[in-house]
């Protein structure tokens, strides 16, 4: 009975959280289109999030490109298909690996940061102080942050993809003496708009998920400083899970369009 009760309680708590998150998302869309717009804060958040995550995305992308090429090369050589390397690497990076890896890195870097920052503001009454001063804290803190991540993530994904493909080229250049022109002409021959556009649209949704979950966890943070840690941690865990669900849906929808 106790195990069943525990499962029921956890399920109820999970569904309640999903419901609250949906209401929070709905409020975000309502507030995002209402005046006054906080352009200055939005630009500041875009700069902070883009700038602070750039190095991490570049390093991750570069390593992913290197590793993917190094791991795949022997198998392709076995089948005499090493000339397919630029096409294979670029398509897999642009369609799938680039967006999901960049989003996961940003969930850790940006999502946890937002959760901790807003959580800390909640427990130290800074959000209440904002409201008392006549400023809508949801608009000033949440809308600007969610919008900033939604706009910045596709840019970071494009940069990450480019760096990853460059990493792959370096391996091919060193190991197979492939020239820059040859490698990238094959990359651009292989890539189509049908690869880039769905991945970019998917990245917007990844950004939205990172921003919404981070802000939701931080904005409703409870239980003092312990709650701040929990908000940051659960923001990353919940976002990571959500990213894979969004990715699955995006791939499923894209696949339907490919079949048409």
């Amino acid at each position, binding site marked *: 009975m106790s195990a069943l009760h525990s499962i029921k309680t956890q399920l109820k708590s999970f569904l309640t959280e999903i419901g609250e998150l949906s209401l929070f998302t709905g409020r975000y869309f309502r507030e995002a289109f209402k005046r006054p717009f906080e352009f200055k804060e939005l630009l500041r958040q875009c700069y902070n999030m883009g700038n602070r995550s750039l190095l991490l995305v570049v390093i991750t992308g570069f390593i992913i490109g290197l590793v993917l090429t190094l791991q795949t090369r022997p198998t392709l050589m076995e089948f005499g298909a090493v000339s397919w390397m630029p096409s294979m690497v670029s398509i897999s990076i642009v369609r799938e690996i680039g967006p999901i890896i960049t989003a996961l890195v940003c969930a850790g870097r940006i999502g946890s940061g937002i959760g901790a*920052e807003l959580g*800390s*503001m909640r427990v*130290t*009454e*800074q959000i*209440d*102080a*904002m*409201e*008392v*001063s*006549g*400023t*809508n804290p949801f608009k000033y803190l949440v809308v600007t942050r969610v919008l900033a991540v939604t706009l910045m993530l596709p840019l970071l994904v494009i940069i990450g993809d480019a760096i990853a493909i460059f990493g792959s080229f370096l391996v091919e250049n060193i190991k197979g003496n492939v020239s820059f022109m040859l490698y990238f002409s094959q990359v651009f021959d292989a890539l189509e708009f049908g690869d880039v556009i769905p991945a970019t649209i998917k990245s917007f949704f990844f950004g939205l998920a990172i921003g919404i979950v981070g802000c939701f966890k931080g904005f409703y943070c409870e239980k003092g400083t312990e709650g701040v840690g929990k908000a940051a941690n659960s923001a990353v865990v919940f976002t990571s899970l959500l990213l894979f669900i969004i990715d699955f849906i995006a791939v499923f929808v894209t696949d339907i369009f490919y079949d048409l």
Partner: protein
Amino acid sequence: MIEHNNISNREIVLELKNLHKHFGKNNVLNGFNMQLFKGENLVIMGKSGSGKSVMIKCLVGLLEADSGTITVMHNDITKLDQEALDILRADIGFLFQGSALYDSMTVRENLEFPLRRHTKKFGEHIDTETLVVEALENVGLASAIDLMPSELSGGMKRRVALARTLILQPKIILYDEPTSGLDPITAKEIIILMQDIQKKYGTSSLIITHDVDCARAISDRMILLIDGIDYAVGTYAELSVSKDPKIKAFFKH
């Protein structure tokens, strides 16, 4: 009692009637009543967890009361829309217990922040710099204008928070535990500052505290919040000699 009659002839700027608020099964406020008169310093004392902070948050609309009326300068705040409430909030200053300074902003930006939504009160051509400097001079911290909150001591943070409260030139100031967490000397300085501000601007003040020294120094009148109600009302002199054991417990040192 003569003093009471004099006060009761004055204008009421803030009134709570039969305020109820509960969290789950815990009834925090059970019909709390209160009146704050113009220019008065009213102290509300209660034990930790007695609902003082809940009451003060209901007053500014940060929490929604279950029932009862909250009238601030002839406006029932429970019936105001968000825009009207925000306009009214410009006339209510709130000093938070932990100062609540925005830690990603400098002292100057902290003080400028409340002004951005209240340009109507000061006119479109608002001289922000003069207002910020004047507010900081009032609390003796003009030199800290470009510092970050993390560079300030606890007492300095409380002063800057007070300056931020003053910048909108409120008619009512709500103080939530203004001396908690401060050493006795700094606490005394804050009390003197509160008295100076009251004299200079003629504000009405509602002070939530469990610091008896603070209550003695600053109160014109006191309300003891016990069991969620206004258990006792009177001056410090009257309440401190009460024989009621619940009231006596507050004044034991």
